[in-house]
């Protein structure tokens, strides 16, 4: 899969003041890392506050088994809001997830109003109640590996997500998860 094609990098001519470009890139990194912390602490609504009204969220993976680019989850901001609100009504594996994110690239558009970023992530699952808690709780397992392909728009000096594609490398997902990645 051509992952670079995942997001359309903002068109750049090099005309933007480098200091503004740096500020935008810093804001983008700040938003990505802040999102990581909020997701880890399951502050879902605070995470959504980092997302623009136009936000779309996808979890995708290329399958060499069926030769198909799969979408495991597709949701608008409104969909994510409903999904989060209904979490307490569902039976869920409550084993906490922690994400380790590294921002690889940030590309800022010519006018400094939008940006895109590519980050690597790994997600660990810290077992609690999903299996046999007497034996397994406290164990940490690698849960997911992939890359985030994010786009942003600048609002009042903050970078807000306009889209996030979490592209997974692993397709053996066992019990899966109800939670945003």
């Amino acid at each position, binding site marked *: 899969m051509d992952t670079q094609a995942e997001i359309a990098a903002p068109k750049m001519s090099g005309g933007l003041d480098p200091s503004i470009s740096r500020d935008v890139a810093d804001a983008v990194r700040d938003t990505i890392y802040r999102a990581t912390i909020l997701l880890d602490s399951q502050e879902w609504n605070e995470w959504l506050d980092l997302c623009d009204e136009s936000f779309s969220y996808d979890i995708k993976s290329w399958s060499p088994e069926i030769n198909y680019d799969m979408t495991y989850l597709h949701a608008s901001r409104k969909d994510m809001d409903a999904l989060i609100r209904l979490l307490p009504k*569902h039976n869920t594996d409550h084993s906490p997830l922690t994400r380790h994110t590294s921002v690889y690239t940030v590309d800022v558009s010519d006018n400094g109003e939008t940006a895109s970023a590519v980050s690597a992530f790994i997600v660990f699952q810290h077992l609690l109640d999903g299996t046999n808690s007497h034996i397994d709780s406290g164990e940490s397992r690698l849960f997911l590996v992939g890359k985030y392909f994010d786009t942003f728009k600048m609002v009042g000096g903050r970078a807000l997500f306009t889209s996030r594609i979490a592209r997974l490398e692993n397709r053996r997902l066992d019990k899966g998860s109800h939670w945003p990645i």
Partner: protein
Amino acid sequence: MPARNHKQWMAAPNLKDGEWIDSRVYTDQAIFDEELEKIFKSAWIPVCHESELPKAYDFRTTSIANEPVIVCRGPDNEVRAFLNVCPHRGMLIERRPSGSFYEGQPSGNPKRMTCMFHAWQFDMKGNCVYISREKEGYQDRLPKENVGLRRLRCEVKFGGFVWVNLNDNPVDLEEWAGKPFECLRKTLDAEPMEVFHYHKAIVNTNYKLWHDTNCEFYHDFMHYHNRVTGFNDAYFARKNESFEHGHIVVGTFEVNYDQYEGFESRAGLSFPHLPPNQWYMIDLFPGMNFNLRGSALRCDVVTPLGPDKVMIEFRGLGLKRDTPEERQTRINHHNSIWGPFGRNLHEDLIGVQGQGTTMRPGSESRRVLHGRQENQTIHDENGMRHYYAEWGKWMNRLPSDPEAPFTEPAAVAAE
């Protein structure tokens, strides 16, 4: 009754034969090994869908009962299956999950299955067509004609699924599954379908516990989604219909998807010859499930890995002719419920893993109840009773006392 002591706990429940089973059928290694030999090596397994190998020389690899299997499409467009084992020294011939033999490989020529180890080559019909240094090594003692691949029974049927059987003389596939598929045959065979979703789960539970979950709907209490979209008079009136060979079918009703916040009605997209928002379920012995929810078809296939370990492959399918918008809609509808990040599948897998936690090799045997009688409607457990009666026949073991030979339970016979 208050909580019970050990003797009371271990006592046979006050239910009829066939309405409970012994948990050793889920935990015993010898029974598991026997199941692979007696059941999985003679049952028809839908190993993949024809859309996974659309062109000549495409292949897909899989396994049944510990035996590696390769399925390939020949230049004559026929799909054939073989053991994925080189007859020379037992090397796995193809290691990739899927691909094409149209291009050459480092050890072999185009349009050939080549064993990378010593470069023996086979055509798409399983004929051995090349042995490296054949004359020098074997003279005339072992001609190519005598070392073809092991061919397996293979048919493309019931909506384009590729069915493989390790037994050379199995029950005819139509006879095996034709009747349960009758409810969806016109729909599934109307036009070509295509797989759009695949993922797998390996969970610590017995494969039958997964199939049990697909065979009973009483567990809908676990699913908030199903309670709010489905619990109505039509839902409770659905029948669990039993078919020969241990299969069951659960009839359709109209699901109110828009009752779940954030979901929309799925009436806009369906399958040929099917009214919108319908839901059919076909469960095939010993562990395959076909589940059609309005706009998407799901297929589960189990690969038992041990008494307390199973791999489940999940596929989602739509119509090959879908527009991009239709396909995306089917994908969303499929995955919002059945995907690895969907609402129901996660709950199902937690449920069966919880059962697997209490029923591990070495756990004391206990009684597992299958005794709900509700006129064979949706929360009746007749589907499981029917399944275990079939299991008992194949294994010649009594599910309620697996050390005893099978006898037909009267309660099941009545169903």
